[in-house]
């Protein structure tokens, strides 16, 4: 017997602008206006740990290798000004403005 897939069936809203996200070789689409981590969780993809989803705990730390994005406020204890300039961010605070290529950063 085939094991059940743990990924839920997800229907994307039609006509929603979305960006293609690649994290360590896994792919999914992130609707415009949604953060990378919430899009990942909604689609049942499991390539980053999900923590507070509010920029505080830092478990979803990544580096963006390619693409444009904005960030919501993040704890300075987790992402310094220097880190931010290098493309380090928390996935729960990244709002894509183009397709993104991302790598997980483990502290």
């Amino acid at each position: 017997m085939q094991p059940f897939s743990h990924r839920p069936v997800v229907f994307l809203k039609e006509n929603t602008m979305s960006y293609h996200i690649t994290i360590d070789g896994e792919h999914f689409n992130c609707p415009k206006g949604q953060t990378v981590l919430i899009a990942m969780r909604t689609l049942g993809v499991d390539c980053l740990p999900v923590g507070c989803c509010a920029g505080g705990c830092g478990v979803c730390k990544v580096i963006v290798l390619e693409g444009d994005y904005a960030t919501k406020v993040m704890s300075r204890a987790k992402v310094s000004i220097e880190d931010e300039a290098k493309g380090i961010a928390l996935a729960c605070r990244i709002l894509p403005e183009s397709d993104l290529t991302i790598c997980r950063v483990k502290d």
Partner: protein
Amino acid sequence: MRKGVIRPGHIQLRVMDMEEALKHYRDLIGLIEVNRDDKGRVYLKGWTEVDKYSLVLVESDTPGLDFIGFKVLNDDVLNGLKNDLIEYGCEVSEFPAGELDSCGRRVSFVAPSGHTFELFADKEQTGKWGLADINPDPWPLNLTGMKAERFDHCLLMGPNVPATQALFEQVLGFGLSEQVVAPDNTVVAAFMSCSLKAHDIAFVDCPDPGKLHHVSFLLETWQDLLKAADLLTMTETTKDVGPTRHGLTSGQTIYFFDPSGNRNEVFCGGDYYYPDHPPVTWKAEDLGKAIFYHELYIHPTYLEVLT
């Protein structure tokens, strides 16, 4: 033996956006905003609390815990405990009356876990919110959100749990109500009470000092918890775990996050504690059952997601 510490009095929490935080603590959890000061701090309380406030929010670029204050019986007790802390070897400092709104002088010290605590004897008492002093109704009109009754306790994470437990027992007169014990008999979690409650403060071992695991607010019933969970979905608030039951304290619970990532709990029910009770013991091997009695396991980030 009790030493005159009577209850958790206040907690100062750092948040990254004050207006977002107020939508969460005031409008969603249902605390009452009572004041703002010239340092930008906002003061809130649960409606059943007699003192003027119990939660102080302060804006910062780093979320987390600044300090927890315990109220003591009177000024003589405060002076006595200050001396006892110094004799025990703690570094003690003092804040003058009025540094926190409507609060008397505060004696501050850092526990071996890395958390800052303070003791105070006086704070303005404004009474239960919305209720008359004479012939009070059972609850006030115009509460919002989860209608939280009071700030109840915190769970803090850091190193040196046994030394922190010893300080709270020997100097501050807390009792150990429940504990989690590792196979080598070291205490890795200490739930401590200065009252009849199952816990007024809890410490869990982790290498990083001074971490906040959660701040907890009391609701009345299990049905209130279910409606609180509904409100989390309605407001798109990130839920962590629950509604479910704890093994430890046997309280019923939901965990969720504030907009800066500080973990909150709303809970109801659970055990009680008298000073002559021996501690309830849980084995660290059975931590899943101890923390989430129905799920029987702890999801991987539960003990890692801290502020």
